[in-house]
Each structure stands twice: as structure tokens, then as C-alpha cells.
């Protein structure tokens, strides 16, 4: 059994904090929210403090931020329908590029593992893929209208140019680039949740996907490639995704976010019942029907809904943020 210990409570934002994200090196993290700012947090004398504030980049709530894999850029998605790219070329983070095109609120932004692609999604039901060209030029590589409702979150596969999106239409869709015309197509639709899918996370291999939903469950999906040994038919798709585990009965309200640690394999969830939960796959679990047990949970981890949880790159710290305006830093130990 593991445990989460509260290390620090950070209360600098005004209004709800929607998202927190780690710099790939794990020494800095960023937060964003209703106050339209992005705050960068680093450790000084053993304590996390906010040294940098990125303001005036957006006119409305900043919903999500994402660090590029190289750590030199931050992308921010905002309700003002734009996505800003901040770079540190001048020595300080400045917003030098703004991506427009979505009809209304941008809900999520994600970088591909190579840093060459960016994805955004919006209440306008579309997912856009952007190519990072030379000289920080961003070109629209695809506009995907596959979902029938608001798209909440996008994330890239850990090592392939494969994109997954979660939507208010209760499904998750997987997209891939078609090399013949460089356009992206939807190769898979994962339907099982009974309400909005709020977030999703690939495991470190990318062959598993965890999704969380307003239906109060978390689902684990397994990829079966063509010619898989379990004999699952794949048709003419390259692979199919099957739901191999549903965690129900744990969360009592909407599960807003899920984070799957690339190092330890632990899954953390952020829930509207103010509780942070951590799950672990049981030893000797059948890979095609795995069992996940809850190893720890923190009741009243925040005073209001927990919106986001994020494992540090080496898995020893979990950060969370809430509607109550606070960010908390938790130390995880076995």
C-alpha cells in the first residue's frame, strides 16, 4: 500500500485552477486557471514558490497548458478560442505566436512526443492538428470533425504520431495520419462510457489507455494490433481497442482528470467529490482482464472539486489543483 503525504499548499491563483503540468525535467511545473494567468513554480530552499507569472496572453480563462517535450515552449489553451505558444528565446517566456481558427473555447492542447505536432480541441466539436514548421511557424495540418459534441481533451501517444481525444459525446476517438495525402483520419472510436469523457492518459508503452468520465467510472482500454495472439479480429484497421477493466464504485462524482505515471505505472484521479485516488494494477493480473486496486485516497484533499492531477516525471510527486484556487504538492511513498 502506498501513501500520499501533503507537502505543500500553494494558494496564489485567484479563482479556480484548472490545470497543472510538469516541465519534462520535473523541476518546474506550471498552473493556469480562471485568473487568465500561467504561473511557473520552482523549488527554492526546499519549498515550491511562484517566481514567474505569464499574463496578458489570453482574454479569458486558460484551461490547459502543455510543455513541449524539449521544455522550451509552453502552449496554453483558452476559452477565448485561441492557443498561445510561449517561448523563452528572449530569456523570459513570451507569447510570440497565437493559433486561431477554433469557433469557440479551446479546451485542451497537447504536444506529440517529437515536438513536431500540436493538437487542440474545442467546444466547436473539432480537433485540430498543427505542424510545427521551421522558424516557429505553425501550420494547420488537419481539421477533424469526427466528434458530435464538445471535445474535452486531447493527448498524443507516448511514442507514435497517434492522437486520442475525449468528448462530451461519451466517446474517445483515435486519429492517425494517412501518409498518402497527409490528412488525419479517425481510426477508432471507443464507446463504453455512459456520459462525458473528461480526460484520458496513455500508459508508458502506449498500448493501454485510461479514460475517466462523468459516469463516475474509470476505464482501462487495451490495444490489440493486427495479428494479435489473443485472436481478436481487427478487420482492416491496424488495431482495435477494447475496454478490459472498469473501475466503478470508487468515485462518487464526475472524474475530471486522470494521470498515468510513466515511471511507476500508478494511476491517479481527480474527482468532483474532492478526493484524490491512486490505483495500481495488481500483480499477476491477466493482461486481457486486469485488476486495478485502489492503493490510497485522500478524502477532502481540497475544499472543492479537484480538477487536475499530474505525476512528476519520476513518479515521486503528485500535484493537484482545485476549484478552491489552491494547488497541492503531495509526496508519494510506497
Amino acid at each position: 500500500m502506498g501513501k500520499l503525504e501533503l507537502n505543500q499548499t500553494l494558494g496564489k491563483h485567484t479563482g479556480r485552477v484548472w490545470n497543472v503540468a510538469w516541465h519534462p525535467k520535473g523541476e518546474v511545473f506550471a498552473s493556469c486557471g480562471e485568473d487568465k494567468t500561467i504561473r511557473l513554480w520552482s523549488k527554492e530552499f526546499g519549498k515550491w514558490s511562484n517566481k514567474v507569472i505569464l499574463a496578458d496572453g489570453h482574454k479569458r480563462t486558460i484551461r490547459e497548458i502543455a510543455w513541449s517535450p524539449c521544455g522550451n515552449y509552453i502552449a496554453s489553451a483558452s476559452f477565448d478560442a485561441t492557443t498561445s505558444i510561449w517561448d523563452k528565446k528572449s530569456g523570459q517566456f513570451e507569447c510570440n505566436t497565437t493559433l486561431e481558427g477554433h469557433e469557440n473555447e479551446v479546451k485542451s492542447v497537447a504536444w506529440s512526443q517529437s515536438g513536431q505536432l500540436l493538437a487542440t480541441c474545442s467546444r466547436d466539436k473539432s480537433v485540430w492538428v498543427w505542424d510545427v514548421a521551421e522558424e516557429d511557424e505553425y501550420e494547420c495540418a488537419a481539421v477533424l470533425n469526427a466528434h458530435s459534441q464538445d471535445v474535452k481533451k486531447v493527448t498524443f501517444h507516448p511514442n507514435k504520431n497517434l492522437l486520442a481525444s475525449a468528448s462530451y459525446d461519451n466517446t474517445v476517438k483515435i486519429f492517425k495520419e494517412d501518409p498518402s495525402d497527409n490528412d488525419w483520419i479517425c481510426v477508432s472510436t471507443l464507446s463504453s462510457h455512459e456520459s462525458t469523457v473528461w480526460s484520458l492518459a496513455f500508459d508508458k508503452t502506449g498500448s493501454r489507455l485510461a479514460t475517466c468520465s462523468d459516469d463516475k467510472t474509470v476505464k482501462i482500454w487495451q490495444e490489440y494490433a493486427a495479428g494479435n495472439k489473443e485472436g481478436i479480429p481487427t478487420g482492416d484497421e491496424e488495431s482495435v481497442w477494447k475496454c478490459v477493466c472498469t473501475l466503478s464504485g470508487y468515485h462518487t462524482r464526475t472524474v475530471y482528470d486522470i494521470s498515468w505515471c510513466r515511471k511507476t505505472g500508478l494511476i491517479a484521479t481527480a474527482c468532483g467529490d474532492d478526493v484524490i485516488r491512486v490505483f495500481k494494477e495488481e500483480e499477476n493480473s491477466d493482461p486481457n482482464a486486469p485488476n486495478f486496486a485502489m492503493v490510497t485516497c485522500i478524502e477532502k484533499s481540497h475544499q472543492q472539486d479537484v480538477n487536475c492531477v499530474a505525476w512528476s516525471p519520476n513518479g515521486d510527486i503528485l500535484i493537484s489543483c482545485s476549484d478552491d484556487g489552491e494547488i497541492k504538492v503531495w509526496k508519494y511513498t510506497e
Partner: protein
Amino acid sequence: MELENVNPNVYNKVNERLITAEEQDDNVVDEIDTREVFDLIRGINDPEHPLSLEELHVLEESLIEVDNDRNLVRVLYTPTIPHCSMATLIGLSIHVKLLRCLPGRFKVTVEINPGTHASEHSVNKQLADKERVAAALENRHLIKVINQCIVSN
């Protein structure tokens, strides 16, 4: 253009609340009760008629639930007609009023009284989506309309 529901039923308001000694005592932790919630929202105006949601029987105290232990408040509202296109706006106004007035510890759910609207499920889903609600409240045109409904007399 004719109003959607031109001849709504209008109801009497309930009597004033009796103040008990306990309520006046500062040492007792202030729990919220259904009457208090009702008092907060009963005066919200309908966007189309110059009448309150109480007078239109959209809101009734008996359709409000409060759980102080688990910090839950649930309000069911009854649109005046089953195809009321103002249903989402009305629900949003109720939700906003409660968000502004109730202590932050409360989880607020506003839903349509089951069986009283054609698009009950989709309206409830939209009202329950706090991200959609948050974004809506950043729309100054919408906030203006909502404030007109909420800030009354």
C-alpha cells in the same frame, strides 16, 4: 412574435418564513435548509414573462433537497411547457444564483423535474457540465441576460 407560453399558470407566493430562536443564535453552526435555498431562488425572473419562477410554479420548495453532511444541494425545476426553449437559460440562472450565494463547500445540482421536458436529459447534462457553465458565464451577453433574471425587484 408570440411568446412561447403565452398563458402561463400563475401561483401564489408562499407565506413569509417564521424565524425561530435557534436561527438567531450565533453559536449554532449555520446549516442550510431547503427553505433558505428556496428563498434564494424563488424571486428569479423568467426571461420571457415579468413573473418569478415561484409564481410560475417552476420552483417549489418541496423539489429542493439539502444534505448538510455531504454538502449537497439539489434543485429540481419544472419548465412551464414541455418544449420550453428557455429551459436551459432558466436552469442556468438558478445555478448561477446558487453558485454566487451558497458557501463554496456545497455541490450544487440543478435538474429538470423528471418527466416535465422533452429534452430533459440533454439540458441536465449541459447544466451539470461545470466547464460549459464556466465558459458560458464569461460570455458578457449571456451574463447580462442572466443578471436581469436574477437581480430583481
